């Protein structure tokens, strides 16, 4: 913001007109004042909740983080012998990030395509129907996505993954031995991509629709094709919006539990072999899987992995904010 054209300073109210001043204050009276407190309370509540969650995680994770590897190996099932806590959380963090990033890579281009089609290409009526349908995808509970993943997608994907593995096995992601059941990270990533598609699409669509009409018409008037108009006017304008949409999607993909739990055949490795079984596990699915039978220090260890997820999500969101804030000035959105 520049200061050169700041509005003229408000003249100090003359002491001779106290009545007027009081009356401006008085517009906030009755329920209006109460409502102000309600909204302030709601705002404070979100901070308090976040603080409470962080406090809970730190307090309950503390015993696990400070325990010795031998103690942890005794108490926590699947805890590898002689490893520090970091080495134990590491593969989980890796699996979580890999699944979420793959899902994002799959979903974002498709979501942008859908959003552009709805905002700039489809006839108005079709656009409305499509918009509803995409929003409907967001309303499907994740357990249903999980069921769909194991009952429909995994059997259908198995031959495709097998083919990619056979012919493009030199590519690190496709290496290894393809699982015949396809309950692997590749299938998980596809399901996660479908799950985050609606939110990315919805936000991108709103952003694209806000492209100033003048920019678009200027581009067309200069002889741009529609694609060139989209490229020169719509996409630059919407870039920061699409980034925040993608980050919202990434947040959901990072925390998704049920679908991953149902589909993934877990393992605890730093591995890029997304077609091979027993290679990866995500933090959320790991907690859901082992919590029912955990007690004592094992619960603390699970909560500590939850803390790691909390930190990752926080970092992702802050990074997204930073990117958006940096781009804002050039997007024309202000």
């Amino acid at each position: 913001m520049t200061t050169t054209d700041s509005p003229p300073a408000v003249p100090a109210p003359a002491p001779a007109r106290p009545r007027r001043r009081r009356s401006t204050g008085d517009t906030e009276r009755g329920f209006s004042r109460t409502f102000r407190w309600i909204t302030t309370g709601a705002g404070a509540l979100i901070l308090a909740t976040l603080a409470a969650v962080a406090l809970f995680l730190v307090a309950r994770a503390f015993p696990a983080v400070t325990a010795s590897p031998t103690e942890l190996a005794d108490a926590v099932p699947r805890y590898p012998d002689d490893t520090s806590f970091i080495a134990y959380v590491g593969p989980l963090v890796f699996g979580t990030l890999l699944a979420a990033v793959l899902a994002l890579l799959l979903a974002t281009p498709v979501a942008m395509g859908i959003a552009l089609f709805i905002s700039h290409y489809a006839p108005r009526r079709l656009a409305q129907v499509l918009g509803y349908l995409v929003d409907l995808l967001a309303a499907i509970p994740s357990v249903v996505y999980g069921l769909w993943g194991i009952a429909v997608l995994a059997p259908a994907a198995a031959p495709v993954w097998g083919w990619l593995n056979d012919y493009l096995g030199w590519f690190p992601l496709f290496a290894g031995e393809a699982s015949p059941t396809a309950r692997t990270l590749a299938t998980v990533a596809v399901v996660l991509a479908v799950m985050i598609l609606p939110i990315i699409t919805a936000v991108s669509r709103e952003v694209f629709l806000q492209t100033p009409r003048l920019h678009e018409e200027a581009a067309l008037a200069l002889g741009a094709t529609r694609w060139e108009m989209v490229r020169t006017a719509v996409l630059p304008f919407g870039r920061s919006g699409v980034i925040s949409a993608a980050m919202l999607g990434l947040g959901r993909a990072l925390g998704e539990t049920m679908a991953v739990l149902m589909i993934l055949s877990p393992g605890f490795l730093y591995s890029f072999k997304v077609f091979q079984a027993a290679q990866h596990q995500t933090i959320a699915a790991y907690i859901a899987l082992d919590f029912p039978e955990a007690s004592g220090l094992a619960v603390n260890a699970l909560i500590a992995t939850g803390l790691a997820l909390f930190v990752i999500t926080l970092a992702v969101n802050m990074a997204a904010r930073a990117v958006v804030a940096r781009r804002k000035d050039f997007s024309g959105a202000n």
Partner: protein
Amino acid sequence: MVGALALSLAACGQNPGADAAADGASASAGDLSGELSGGGASSQESAMEAWRAGFQGQYPDVTVNYDPVGSGGGRENFISGAFPFAGSDAALDDDELADAEAQCGEGGVIEYPAYISPVAVAFNLEGIDSLNMTPETIAGIFKGDITTWDDAAIADDNPDADLPSTDITVVHRSDDSGTTENFQEYLSTVVPDVWTYEPEGIWPVDGQESAQGTSGVVSAAQAGEGTITYADASQIADLGTVAVGVGEEFVEYSPEAAAAVIEGSPRVEGTSEHVFAYDLARDIEGTYPIVLVSYHLACATYEDAEQAELVKGFLGYVLSEEGQKAAADSAGSAPLPTALAEEFAGAVDAITAG
């Protein structure tokens, strides 16, 4: 009193099965009320849910609680008197029995198997419904030593089967599960030199496929060709099943064959008349050996008359045909053989207050 009677009549009217429990258990059926809190083996948890629901359905004034603290905790709390009844995957050993007799007083301890949970070994191979496998072969496959379906170890026992050269994909439970422990318990008892792992709820072999829950492993096995898994015997859907080598022959799973394990196993001798402990024999011809047998523990006399009636009523219901069927439906257990269930019910019937 009249109100209670009317209520119980109404309950009987709604539930025709109530009579079955009544003549097995409590003579004064219908006027039970109060709270009964036991606990123990978590293997019985889902069966216990069904039993609680069934029993509380018959006696709406009764609340039954079962704390799945584990078999060891169940026995400990039973001996200390904290649990009026308990569930345990192992029978009381001699010392525990002596302590429990002391706690229960003059009538002594009642102990009998109440829950038999069979595990099937199931596979997905096109066109093959059943395969014979010796325990050594099963352990070799699940350990990862035998890797293809046309391996000689499998082919030798199945001369008629047209075995493909497909890789074997083992699917195990990814969660901490009693079925895993039960299955490993069998392997390490029968072939300890092949299955060298300590049986526990988490699968010991790394790098194999896995899925969460019984339905998870079953659907994973269905999804891939050449998969093999283990699951509660009632849940394996249309997968092919392994006939398990017992002695010289191979036995297919059936509830009767699973329940027959107790009938054929020798009862531990030198115990009082109400203690039915068995040395589980995994090698009796004609019986299906991959089973978990879980016991119920109770006292023959209770100081509190209400508690005596409740234990008698509840355990009587568990042993009734209806109770065994409820557990079979919800937990996939194999119903006890009728003759044995009646024998155990006789012991439960002898519970008195005193």
